[in-house]
């Protein structure tokens, strides 16, 4: 069954005809060729497929494409502005939070959602907020550091970034 959807992806309006059974993840990767968003488990456990839907971090593998009609989607490709990486992306680089990189887009998206809430979190809170993501490489320490760095008040700290 074919359905028509209108939605915004990384600031661009899109109109697509999709199959009712297609996931948002499939649409993003196979139709829009935005392959930054990954499929790990496909069942909502690993977080590799996380995207922002109207600003909220959601697993796109468990999200039907038809639900995206009228919504605003941001994938990892949409975070950099005018060629400049976002604060979260820079923090992941400077803290060495990336190894194979498969989990990274998901973590970066969730961290971006946390950052847009505009307040810092304790270590425990950061861990709770990241509980929907798996990383098989890093052991998480640098990811947590990177997320905390992303949440530091923009005006506080004089260290600058190391990118």
């Amino acid at each position, binding site marked *: 069954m074919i359905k028509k959807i209108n939605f915004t992806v990384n600031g661009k309006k899109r109109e697509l005809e999709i199959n009712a059974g297609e996931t948002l993840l499939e649409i993003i990767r196979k139709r829009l060729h935005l392959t930054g968003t990954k499929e790990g488990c496909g069942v*909502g456990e690993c977080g590799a497929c996380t995207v922002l839907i109207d600003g909220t971090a959601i697993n796109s593998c468990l999200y039907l494409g038809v639900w995206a009609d009228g919504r605003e989607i941001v994938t990892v490709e949409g975070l950099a502005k005018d060629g400049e990486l976002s604060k979260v992306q820079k923090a992941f680089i400077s803290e060495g939070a990336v190894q194979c990189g498969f989990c990274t887009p998901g973590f970066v998206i969730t961290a971006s959602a946390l950052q847009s809430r505009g307040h810092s979190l304790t270590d425990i809170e950061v861990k709770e907020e990241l509980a929907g993501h798996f990383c098989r490489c890093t052991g998480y320490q640098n990811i947590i550091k990177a997320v905390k760095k992303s949440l530091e008040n923009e005006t506080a700290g004089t260290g600058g970034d190391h990118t």
Partner: protein
Amino acid sequence: MYLIDDYIEADSVDEAVNLLADNPERLIIAGGTDLLIKMRDGILENVQMVGIRRIEPLRKIEKDEQNVISIGAMATFNDLVRSELVQNNIPIMAEAAMTVGGPQIREMATVGGNLCNGMPSADSAPALLVLNARLKLLSKSGVRLAPLQEFYLRPGKVDLRPGELLTEILISKEDYLNFGGCYIKFAPRKAMDLAILGVAVTCRIRVTGIFDLVRIALGVAGPTPLRCEIAENFPPGKPVNDSIIAEIGRLAVKSSRARDSQRASKEFREHLVVELTQRALKSACNRAGGISYD
């Protein structure tokens, strides 16, 4: 790609109910976090669906003039966690909601879906059982009110009749006012895991340090979430102290129907029932006020 033959997005409760009346085979999809996994595993395929995500009234959490709390079936677990009304009146629901999956799952998964798919491990069920929740089920022939306790038939099977849509979960003030409550989920991991056992306890204490009422419900201790009537009948009129609480924990096992499973043995689950009922009851006593347990 899921094998969905037909999908209609209902814009209103009436439209959803009409669609179900026309074709009772139609599956309702709420948050999708369980249903889509079943479809991926091939347990369900070639289905006809009706989506109810856009029906905003189904997501409301509110209180009426009689202080009856109504939780919309499409309220997500994060809606429950964030709701001030829930935190102030039925905090045990926020506590239970917080144990579900991880943040992304809590954002999608709904309390109505959690009940209707009938999983014995549903985290919302024990908490709603001790709150004596009633379900408002709407069909073309009208509204049916069903106590949650009678809704569970067997694993994966609930008393949702053809053409019915769960719209609201109702909790009366007699079932939450002046109660203290606590939900404890036992699972190998702190997040993203199913319960090996879930224990919900609420209690009301007389100012004199005497139990007025205790309610206990267990998840994954039997084929369906269940209440522990034998243990509940014991405390009214008895003093709030360690030995009474210990006895209540032991009595809770009498209602449990735990069995060996891949995830835990019967003996281990029963041990958990005793221990966690006591712990949850102590917290519930603290929260009910007047008593201080560490």
